[in-house]
């Protein structure tokens, strides 16, 4: 299997993300790939199916900038603050374009990524009992346990075209270390056809101990060093979450014009890898 190419974020996105792709950007509060998301916006990708358990500001920005045709998710909000106004505007009022949604629970999406990483066609789990989600999502079905007869939920394995994640470190051979809250990032990369990993730094030795969470180089397409690449989320061991930015986002995103102006000056006019603040 080929090893990861260590390159620039610009190149990594240009090489691996295409219009119409299904694209998973993961990071469970921690290690959210903001810089990579901004580069995708700058490169003007369109008609993407955006996949993320917890769409937050980065997806609000991508949706508001017109990158997305469809959203696959299980909880969409600005954590601890409120709604995602750009996401709601797209769903409720088709701005800047209609947004199709495929909605799951966290348990379902976590299992679907696990099944994708495990090479299975579907995930089987105990879920979706007695609620309305199966009525609005025809990808929620069931199988029967051949021993007990119990009806278990089944959903298709998650298999994005591209997974994009941020991690703490890569070594010079392209192996990647994740530490702290690791979310579903390892599964997302293993489930995807291609993958981009941005890292805080590239080091000689990953450290991490005998059971560290490591993605071997030959599971990754491209790696780019992007210090602060998860800002305003955080990187365990590097910098804290900028909670004040999450709060500040709410008024910015409420209004279409304010949003576009902010994106223009903070994302579109910036160079790849430059932070938002």
């Amino acid at each position, binding site marked *: 299997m080929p090893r990861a190419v260590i390159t620039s974020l610009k190149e990594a996105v240009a090489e691996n993300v295409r219009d119409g792709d299904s694209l998973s950007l993961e990071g*469970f509060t921690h290690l959210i790939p903001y810089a990579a998301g901004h580069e995708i916006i700058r490169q003007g990708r369109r008609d993407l199916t955006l996949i993320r358990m917890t769409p937050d500001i980065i997806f609000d920005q991508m949706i508001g900038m017109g990158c997305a045709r469809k959203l696959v998710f299980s909880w969409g909000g600005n954590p601890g603050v409120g709604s995602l106004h750009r996401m709601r505007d797209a769903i409720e009022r088709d701005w800047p374009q209609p947004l199709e949604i495929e909605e799951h629970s966290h348990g379902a999406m976590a299992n679907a990524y696990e099944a994708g990483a495990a090479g299975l066609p579907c995930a089987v789990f*105990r879920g979706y009992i007695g609620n309305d989600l199966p009525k609005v999502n025809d990808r929620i079905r069931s199988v029967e346990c051949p021993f007990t007869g119990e009806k278990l939920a089944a959903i298709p394995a998650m298999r994005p075209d591209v997974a994009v994640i941020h991690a703490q470190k890569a070594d010079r051979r392209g192996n990647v270390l994740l530490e702290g809250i690791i979310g579903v990032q390892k599964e997302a990369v293993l489930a995807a056809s291609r993958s981009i990993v941005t890292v805080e730094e590239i080091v000689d030795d990953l450290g991490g101990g005998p059971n560290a969470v490591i993605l071997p180089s030959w599971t990754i397409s491209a790696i780019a060093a992007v210090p602060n690449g998860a800002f305003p989320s955080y990187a365990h061991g590097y910098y*804290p979450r900028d*909670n004040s930015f999450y709060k500040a986002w709410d008024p910015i995103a409420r209004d279409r014009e304010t949003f576009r102006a902010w994106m223009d000056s903070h994302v579109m006019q910036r160079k790849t890898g430059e932070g938002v603040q």
Partner: protein
Amino acid sequence: MSDRTYTADEMMTVAASRALRNGQVCFVGIGQPSAAANLARQTHAPDVVLIYESGTLETRPDVLPLSIGDGELAETALTNVSVPEMFRYWLQGGRIDVGFLGAAQVDRYGNINTTVIGGTYLKPKTRLPGAGGAPEIATSARETFILLRQSPRAFVEKLDFITSLGHGSGGNSRAEAGAKTLGPTRLISDLCQMAPHPETKELTVTTIHPGVTRDQIIAATGWAIRFADSVTETPVPELSELAVLREIHARTARAHAGQA
């Protein structure tokens, strides 16, 4: 022994905190559940085990998390596991005693809506954040506690969408749907506490917070709320509980004000 100058939210948090027993394993959400669980841990239940869906196992935050995956949670955790492992081994695996659930809407059977309000599913009047971990917390945790401020908009006759199963349509309907766990055993609001009736499973007022009247509760409920045969007054917050809770909130406010 008590201080009358507490808020309705403080009463609600203290009541929720007291509902946790020492040693229980508790699946916690952001906001009031976090405040209640950490208050319990810092008062009567030092060995309560707090688990957040971000994968933080047995965490002991000094500061309440703003998000479900704050660094504070990871740093003070016994260990951090992947989110698939969290949902498979720890929640679905039956390791959780109590799951806290919030809601935008709840009905008389403790079913919950956090998906859409008004309009249609595809074109809702209000798009809510969605399910998150709730549907599987609702059916895999041994029991759940619902925390929700009471109003006719939140306590409704009929949900616009069932995101998470409570007691279904009452009676045995929850078990018949395939759930093997107890479901909501308690609802704690800013006005009162409710518990499901043993047979009908309808949420029924069991304790009323000090100073609250039955009429207030009736006016704040969108269905014809019933009161248990024997309704007691919720014990008022102790000064010591309020002191710990306020210190938690003060630490949290300081920490979240800036970058940290």
